[in-house]
């Protein structure tokens, strides 16, 4: 099982580098433009449309949280969805799953090795992305001091991993029970989009607030408080609890 785990991680080294540095690039663009952008945002009166897409533009910290944290975590989750739904269903489509299941490994060993490997890959991606974004912030704040420290940003970005793990486990579950990669990816994408909008709409409409608990995004703090308070342990436990193996 360990050999399969190592193989699964090794086979994704390009994804680790590509997504890791891609997320640094994304962060670099949005962190570097914020000093000028913030002056323009101050003139905007109605910010509700931005709230709908998860953006809090009332403060620099809010901007950092809602743009960098939300979209970096969304991009990571997209990778996790693609990878998790295509791991089992994709191998079945390609015909390679038959070789693996003919090995002296139980089904749970195969599933566990693949799920752990993908979680480790997500961890590596996020470590690269978090270090890179923290470094860029450190450079930017030399001339634009704000209440977000590079270490605070690093911790806040790393805190999105349980969210990614949650989507990985649901993706694996769908990949295992649905007949092909396309269907599992479609169902997972619908769930992902619905989860994102449920969280944001529920935050805007009081009567819809109870439904926010059905969204995985509800358990990842993307408000400015995460820079000072960090992630809530209870939220992390809930996200990790989506792992069907727990």
């Amino acid at each position, binding site marked *: 099982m360990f*050999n399969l785990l190592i193989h699964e991680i090794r086979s994704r080294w390009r994804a680790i580098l590509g997504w890791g540095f891609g997320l640094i690039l994304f962060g670099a663009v949005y962190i570097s433009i914020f000093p000028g952008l913030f002056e323009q945002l101050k003139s905007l009166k109605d910010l509700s449309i931005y709230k709908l897409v998860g953006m809090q533009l009332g403060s620099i910290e809010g901007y950092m949280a809602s743009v960098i944290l939300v979209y970096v975590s969304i991009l990571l989750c997209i990778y996790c969805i693609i990878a998790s739904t295509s791991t089992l269903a994709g191998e079945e489509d*390609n015909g*390679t799953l038959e*070789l693996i299941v*003919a*090995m*002296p490994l*139980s089904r749970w060993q195969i599933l566990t090795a693949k799920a752990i490997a993908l979680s480790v890959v997500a961890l590596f991606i996020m470590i690269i992305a978090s270090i890179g974004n923290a470094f860029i912030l450190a450079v930017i704040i030399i001339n634009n001091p704000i209440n977000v420290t590079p270490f605070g940003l690093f911790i806040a970005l790393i805190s999105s991993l349980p969210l990614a793990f949650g989507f990985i486990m649901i993706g694996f579950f769908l990949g295992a029970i649905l007949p092909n990669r396309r269907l599992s990816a479609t169902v997972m994408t619908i769930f992902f989009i619905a989860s994102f909008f449920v969280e944001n709409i529920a935050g805007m409409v009081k009567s819809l607030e109870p439904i926010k608990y059905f969204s995985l995004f509800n358990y990842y703090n993307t408000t400015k408080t995460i820079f000072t308070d960090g992630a809530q342990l209870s939220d992390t436990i809930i996200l990790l609890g989506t792992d069907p193996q727990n």
Partner: protein
Amino acid sequence: MSSEIIIQTNDLSVYYGAHRGVKDLNLSVQKGEVFGFLGPNGAGKTTTQRVMLDIIHPTKGKSTIFGLDCQKDGVAIRERISYLPGELSLYPSMKASYFLDLFGSLQKNKLDKLYLKQLLELLNLGPSRKIKEYSHGNKQKIGVIAAFMAKKDLIILDEPTIGLDPLVQQTVLELVQEVKDEGRTVFFSSHNLKEVQAVCDRVGIIQNGELIKTEKIATLTSQQLKRLEINFRKEPPHDAFAIEGVKEISRNRNLVMFEVSQDLDRLMEKAAPYGIIDIETKTVSLEEIFFAFYSPQNKGGQNV
């Protein structure tokens, strides 16, 4: 060959919804035997193998390998089995050497690197390239090597020589023979009847998911279907041999060729009045027997 049973299926049935995979399959394979599994496409060969490997579960019945239940003890069984799928799909961006190392490392027993090297040389395969860069035949060689390299007690081969040139086909058959000589067992599924005849001890013929015949190759070819050429003293009329299990296949005046799938008594009885000068028996290949089983006139080979 030992009398120890390696593979046993009892009333094994697999249905995919309403579609039949295999139905009430009963077969046994002994230790040290090369068992040929013959059948047209969709007959249920691959389904049977997948049940043995616990890739799919049977709808009804049971299969055991090494005395262990295929569904309950799948991991313990697979520790002693290697498998070459019929529709072999490999990882295209993986190097052949990495693939072989990976699948060697997933086996329970330690891989004999020297034997792997011998196999690579025997099949003339350089493993340093990515799998997508190999021809279809060379990809099949990688699958063959992966199946043989771990020296398992039972090797399940589904169309092992497909896409290989005749020389390499012969090498694969020699490898099968080597496994047999070492007292290990091979379950050999194939469409190539000549190679089944060349290496198998017994053959099971499956049609529409049902095992319609299990027989030793030698018995099948020597007893089941006979071809006789009789030289008569006087030419018999065309309707003289309308007997069940006897088919007149050619005639040149007094020289008549028959294909007989039953005892010769009735034919001899009918032939005697025309005077028999000479009888010559012809060798019947497994291929001809196979086609006799699957001919539209012969539903399931009952008359063969």
